[in-house]
């Protein structure tokens, strides 16, 4: 029953967070000066035309009415239509999202594998040159501004890897095979994914190192040593498992990168993902698309945290108690 309580509590908490985020989403974008119509300064548009446009977009209604309509539509899974293209928001966002997901996944996988490896090695060999080197690089990468790192990679790999976009636009003229298309996509993904991967790598390596070092000082590790276990067995089988707890949380939290980090990286590599779509929506005052993008961000973060909470329940018996 304790498990059911925990599950229920976490679920309610997640739902409340989502509702608050949805409401804040609505308020924040309307608190900014101007609207989609004032943004559209059209010399030849008459006042009547602008009013008609406001009416079409629902901007003539009171904020409260707009809020109620927004909630009702959302409950029906309708995120509205873009003010700019008049297309459903989901249609506007689904392609960018599908472009971003594999890129982020590749970057995150890279950072998890290398961040954990490097953190473990550093903790295991603490105080040595290996630890010092690992620590320095991790700190350096962690503190690099994402967009600057992206730009540097772009310059360094100019001519070797594509500088922008998601695919070679002229590939279709060569009648490409399935494999050619796959390789082309992958090539375009490498630089943006590497940018995200390198920044996250620094973070993961630092956390794993410090968490593992703490665990290596615990009594149960001393006991394991006293039992005569070998070093690798102590680190991998005993200490590492305990040290993984904060890493699980960190990985869940970094899913917020989906939109936030993607904005910077995608702007450097002209990568048509959710980050770029969000940026465009900001400059065009396209509320529905902005709300949609932030809703996706919110849901992904809340969902990831929710999953982390549930995972914790499994991983850490203390939570169940």
């Amino acid at each position, binding site marked *: 029953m304790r498990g059911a309580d925990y599950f229920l509590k976490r679920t309610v908490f997640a739902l409340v967070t989502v509702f608050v985020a949805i409401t804040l989403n609505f308020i924040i974008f309307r608190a*900014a*000066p*101007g609207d989609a119509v*004032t*943004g*559209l*300064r*059209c*010399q*030849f*548009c*008459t006042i*009547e*035309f602008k009013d*008609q446009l406001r009416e079409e977009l629902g901007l003539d209604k009171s904020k409260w009415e707009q809020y109620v309509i927004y909630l009702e539509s959302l409950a029906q899974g309708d995120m509205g239509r873009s003010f*700019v*293209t*008049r*297309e459903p928001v989901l249609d506007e966002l689904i392609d960018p999202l599908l472009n971003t997901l594999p890129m982020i996944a590749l970057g995150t996988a890279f950072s998890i594998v290398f961040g954990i490896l490097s953190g473990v090695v550093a903790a295991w060999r603490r105080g040595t040159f290996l630890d010092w080197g690992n620590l320095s690089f991790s700190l350096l990468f962690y503190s690099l501004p994402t967009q600057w790192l992206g*730009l540097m990679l*772009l*310059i360094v790999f*100019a*001519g070797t890897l*594509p*500088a*922008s*976009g*998601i*695919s070679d*636009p*002229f590939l279709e*003229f060569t009648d490409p095979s399935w494999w050619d298309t796959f390789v082309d996509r992958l090539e375009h993904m490498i630089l943006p994914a590497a940018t995200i991967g390198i920044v996250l790598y620094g973070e993961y390596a630092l956390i794993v190192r410090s968490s593992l070092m703490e665990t290596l000082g615990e009594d149960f590790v001393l006991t394991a040593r006293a039992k005569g276990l070998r070093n690798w067995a102590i680190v991998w089988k005993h200490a590492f498992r305990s040290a993984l707890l904060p890493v699980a949380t960190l990985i869940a939290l970094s899913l917020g990168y989906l939109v936030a980090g993607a904005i910077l990286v*995608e*702007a*450097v*590599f*002209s990568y*048509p993902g959710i980050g*770029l779509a969000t940026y465009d929506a900001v*400059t*065009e*005052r396209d509320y529905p698309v902005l709300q949609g993008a932030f809703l996706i961000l919110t849901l992904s973060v809340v969902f990831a945290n929710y999953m982390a909470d549930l995972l914790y329940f499994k991983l850490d018996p203390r939570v169940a108690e």
Partner: protein
Amino acid sequence: MKRVLALLAALLMTALALAACGGDGGGGQAAGTGAEEEGEVVKGGILRVGTTDGYDSINPFVAFSAQSYSTFIDIYPELVQYNADFEWEGDWAESWETSPDGLTWTFKLKPGGKWSDGTPLTAEDAVWTGETILKYADGPTANLAPFLEHVKSLEAPDPNTLVVTYETPVGNVLPQLQQFFVLPKHVWQKYAVGDGKALKQYLPEKDLPIVSAGQYVLTKYDKKGTTILERNEGFYGPQPNADAVGIQWFANSDAMVTAFRSGELDFIAVPLTAVSAIEDDPQFEVIKAEGFQINNFIFNSNPKKPQNRELLDPRVREAFAHALNREEMIEVVHAGHAQPVASIVAPVAGKWMNPNLKPEEYDIDRANQILDDLGYERGSDGIRMANGHKMSYEIITPDSLDGINRAFEIAKTGLAEIGVEVTQNSLDSTTAFEEIGAPEWKYLNFDLSMWDWVGYLDPNFVLSVVGCDQYGGWSDTAYCNPEYDRLYKLQAATADEEKRKEIVWKLQEILYEDKPYIQLVVLDIVTAHSTKWDGFLPGGLDAYTKRYLGEPHQVG
């Protein structure tokens, strides 16, 4: 016409009429191609073009962005266009003549044109497009209506003749018609029903390839990727040299320049700060041309402005003008690729620019003398006092304008030398423009700003932005002068070019004296292309002629 900012940028480019510099006034066909003839012409190949100006829509009733308009020129017929020497020539029109009263324009059209779906292109398409634009001018077709301003009717006495009749004489008929794109009636007419809203809602990109009758057919549309134009075999004019053109969008110019230098692109407009690096590379050829963008310094000229009213005084404005170091801005901000200017009409507009107006010299002593004579004495901190308060002001700047922060610092240094303190309020473009108009487009709060205008070859638009009727429209100065407005309307209705020129020059004089703006510098347009290609026209002409993407060719 275009303010460089996200939305705005879009709007501007769209709107107006370009015009006629060096036009032959309207009878007959102009000559001269101006195309380069160096290198052996090799037909075929894909021309890969990089751009940082995105498409906003490919529906002409919705689009505002410069990139969209540039593509409409390539895929739709227009009656006339400019050649490389800025002279008029026919595009679809073979020749044209004007009635003695200037109200009726008869265009003889090139025969044999076909839409890309095989349907014949006829004058009936032009009549339908024109009538539809006029019918819904107050709503769905509002953004194209200016190009047919004062048009009374369009008729097609035969498939190759179009007659356009105006209600009143118009000073810039050809510049306006140069932006009149003819659409395929058989595709669009089902949307021109009821209130016409369907015209705006139609998404041509859902029916690719877009039915085109220009030199290219749009076969792939990707706003955030690469849009592809392929040669149209049914084009009424000369076939373009390239088989296809790929227009690839970049989110930032650094990435675009990097892609160009590594051979991923054949042709780009070069950011001015990157020109020297590309110039030194023998793999590329650089073309420099006079540009359309003029950066300026703005005074709030609203006579009802409650604060800091000393800024309304033309003498104070003159003192400011002598404290702004244009040469330093050119060197530091634009890497030497700009020229000082005095008028809102750019030199590239040719005879329309008033050559008698000279940029104010950078002369700190003279500026100080003017303010001393006005009795604005310096306080102990070196800042002058005017009407009981410090001469300390805020300058609104849009963050989208390249180099604006450095330009502001140069202005700040110069003004500090004459005892004027300025601080920068950097805002995104939409917000900056709203701050200038605040509150509610009454223009009461702001003092100063630094921004730009991008004009056309015809001065009609750029002279309109200071009209009294532009409060809440294009005005960024709140300038309002009834005499100016009277002359502006007069030039718009003056068909005689010489007479119109005199009025246009007078308008520029008025602005120079009243100084709602201090015009600072006009930026060059620099393009670069791989030496594997040739035949490019000067940058900026993409808005004026099909030759821009029709003539480039591979070199043997």
